[in-house]
């Protein structure tokens, strides 16, 4: 392909300098991180620049990392350049106390419901979104269910005994620490 990860990285560092960091290439896809205030500018740059031309938003999602204090909620964007067949991914991290991220609905209409879903599940507040209300869950819900501290099951059931199935009792798959942080924090994400 004509557009290589090296070239994209050079152009980004030339335009944004210190604001883009954390470059890595897991499984061939260029991944980097940027400051939350810059996401709209970065996306506009990637969209408009004729040599880069990332004009398709593949996916927009959020991840909760309770172990990274001050950077708990991550918003991950996947972009795709259909002509050159090149994909990139970038992330912005925001703290739970002030989870404000600029909304990219002005650039991509597809981001409308994707951001609503990220708000519904994780509570990320997208500034500038035309209609930021819950989409999948019941409107009256007052917490953000996919955060790690909330349980999966319906807590109102009294007739189930789940001790042997790995929940409710003492046996869990042993997958993560009690506060929800992951077992191994990948080395490159220790950006501190």
């Amino acid at each position, binding site marked *: 392909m004509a557009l290589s990860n090296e070239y994209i990285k050079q152009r980004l560092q030339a335009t944004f300098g210190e604001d883009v960091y954390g470059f890595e290439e897991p499984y061939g896809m260029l991944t980097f991180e940027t400051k939350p205030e810059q996401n709209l500018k970065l996306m506009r740059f990637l969209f408009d620049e004729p040599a880069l031309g990332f004009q398709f938003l593949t996916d927009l999602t959020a991840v909760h990392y309770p172990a990274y204090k001050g950077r708990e909620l991550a918003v991950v964007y996947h972009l795709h350049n259909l002509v050159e067949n090149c994909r990139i991914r970038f992330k912005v991290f925001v703290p739970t106390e002030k989870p404000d991220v600029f909304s990219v609905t002005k650039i991509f209409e597809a981001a409308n419901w994707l951001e609503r879903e990220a708000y519904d599940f994780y509570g990320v507040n997208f500034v500038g979104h035309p209609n930021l209300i819950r989409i999948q869950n*019941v409107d009256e819900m007052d917490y953000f269910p996919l955060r790690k501290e909330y349980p*999966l099951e*319906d*807590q109102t059931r009294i007739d189930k005994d789940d001790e042997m199935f790995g929940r409710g009792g003492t046996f869990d798959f042993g997958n993560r620490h009690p506060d929800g942080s992951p077992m191994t924090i990948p080395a490159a994400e220790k950006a501190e």
Partner: protein
Amino acid sequence: MARPVSYNIKEKPLEKDISIVDMPDGYQGEGFFATKLGDVVGLARKNSLWPLPFATKCCGIEFMATMASHYDLARFGAERVGFSPRQCDLLMIIGLISKKMAPVVKQVYLQMAEPRWVMAIGACASSGGIFDTYSVLQGVDQVIPVDVYVPGCPPRPEAILDGFMKVQEVVGKESLRRRNSDHYKKLLESYGIQ
């Protein structure tokens, strides 16, 4: 070594051109036939049920296969599937009901006129199925009373037909006074339905 697969190995030979349902028990004489009114009404009701398929998810596709020509539901008298609750007798809840959908199910049930029956098709409608999460209603019988449960994920069309035949049994044997009885009223009150 796989054995050869064949379906319908015990074919029932066709006795007559048209198959008719059996007569209810009664006393026959020349020019008259005496039986219980409940039996006759039950016979008429059970062979002409009008179902309302409330299909939400994957079981709905198996229901579509049941309605299609291979496993025909129309042979049981359910030719006309209506989508208006005012006109239907049997509410078939096919698929998962989430907490967001529960008030809608209740409203549809309330709009149905007596006598009405409910059939919960699929594991999700019977008990929440494989989705034991905060947003899924663990069984539709938490909001409306259910007569027949058909387990399966999704149930084969033969299972849905079996469930339908069990509903027919329930309908045929129902007493004419059941809907006004205290027992039924208590049942509805336990669901908060007047």
